[in-house]
C-alpha cells in the first residue's frame, strides 16, 4: 500500500491528538488513585470519614476508564480504515468517528463540534480511509474559519437511493451561501477532492460568517 505524505500527516495528526487525550485520561486516573492513597496515609486515621470523597474519586476513575476505552476503540477502528481500498461503509459511523476524533482540535479553537446522525444507516461503497480524510479536512478548514464560541454541525443525509451527502454548517449558516463539491470515483478524483477541501481556506474569507459545505457521494460508483 502506497502511503503519501499527506495521508501519513493525517494519520499522524489524529494519532497524536488521541495519544494526548489518553495521557490526560491516565493523568486523572493516576491523581485520583494518588489522592485515595494520600487520604489513607496522610489524612485522618479513620478513612471511613472520607467515604463520600472516596465514592466521588472512584466514580471519576470509572468515567475516565470509560473515556479511555472509547478513545482506544475509536483509534483502533481508525487505524484499520485503510485496510481495504474499497469497502462498504456506513456514513453515519464515519461521521460520528471523525467528529469525535476531531473534538480536541475543535476544543482548542473553542468551537463545539457536533454530529447530527439520522436513525437510518447511510451505506456507501467507497474508500473508507479517504472519506475519513476528506471529512477531517473539511472540519479543519471550517475550524480555522470559525469564531470562538460557535458550533459546527456535521450531518449525513440521503437525498435519494443513489446518492448521499455530508453537510457541514456553522451556527446560523445560510444555505444560500453554500459551497458544494464531491462525487469522487477514482484515486485522482479523491486526491483532487482532498486538495479542494484544503484549498477552501483560500477561497472562504476568515470571519466571513457562517458557512455551509456539502459533499456529495454516489452510493456505489462502481
Amino acid at each position: 500500500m502506497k502511503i503519501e505524505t499527506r495521508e501519513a500527516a493525517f494519520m499522524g495528526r489524529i494519532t497524536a491528538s488521541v495519544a494526548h487525550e489518553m495521557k490526560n485520561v491516565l493523568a486523572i486516573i493516576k491523581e485520583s488513585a494518588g489522592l485515595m492513597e494520600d487520604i489513607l496515609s496522610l489524612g485522618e486515621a479513620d478513612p471511613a470519614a472520607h467515604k463520600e470523597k472516596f465514592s466521588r474519586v472512584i466514580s471519576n476513575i470509572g468515567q475516565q476508564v470509560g473515556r479511555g476505552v472509547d478513545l482506544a476503540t475509536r483509534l483502533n477502528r481508525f487505524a484499520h480504515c485503510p485496510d481495504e481500498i474499497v469497502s462498504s461503509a456506513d456514513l453515519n459511523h464515519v461521521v460520528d468517528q471523525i467528529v469525535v476524533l476531531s473534538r480536541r482540535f475543535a476544543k482548542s479553537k473553542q468551537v463545539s463540534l457536533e454530529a447530527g446522525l439520522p436513525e437510518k444507516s447511510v451505506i456507501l461503497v467507497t474508500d473508507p480511509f479517504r472519506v475519513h480524510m476528506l471529512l477531517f479536512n473539511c472540519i479543519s478548514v471550517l475550524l480555522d474559519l470559525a469564531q470562538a464560541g460557535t458550533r459546527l454541525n456535521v450531518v449525513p443525509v440521503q437525498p435519494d437511493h443513489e446518492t448521499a451527502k455530508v453537510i457541514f454548517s456553522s451556527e446560523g449558516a445560510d444555505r444560500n451561501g453554500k459551497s458544494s463539491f464531491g462525487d469522487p470515483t477514482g484515486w485522482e478524483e479523491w486526491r483532487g477532492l482532498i486538495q479542494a477541501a484544503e484549498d477552501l481556506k483560500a477561497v472562504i474569507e476568515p470571519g466571513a460568517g457562517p458557512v455551509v459545505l456539502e459533499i456529495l457521494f454516489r452510493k456505489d460508483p462502481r
Partner: protein
Amino acid sequence: MEGLRVLLVDDEEDFVTTLAERLRLRGMNAETAGNGEAALERIATAAPQVVILDVMMPGLSGLDVLKRIKADNPQLPVILLTGIGSTKEGVEGMRLGAADYLMKPLQIEELIQKISEALGKAAGGDV
C-alpha cells in the same frame, strides 16, 4: 512548604481539582484555574507564589499565558505541564522563562521537588 500559594492551571477539571486536593493534603494553599484567562485573573488577585501551567489549553495556550506572566511578574516561577510526547513545548517554555517542565502523568514527589527548586531559583539561592 506549608501554606505555599500554588496556582494550578489546566482545562482538564478532574485532573486539576484532584491534584489541588493532593497538594492541600500536604499543607499547601492550592487553587485552580480552568483556562489561561482565568489564570491571569487569579494571578492578579491571589498572588500565587508558584504557577503550574498546562501547555495545551483552549483559547490562550500555556505558552501565551507564560509570556504574559513573564511580562508582568518576571520573578513568579512557572512550571509547565505537557501531555505531548516530545519535549519541544517544554524546552520552548524554558526559553521563554519557565522554571521547568514536567510530563503528564505526574509523579507528585517530582512535582514537589520541582516546586522547591523553582522557589529556590526565584529566591536566588542554590537548591
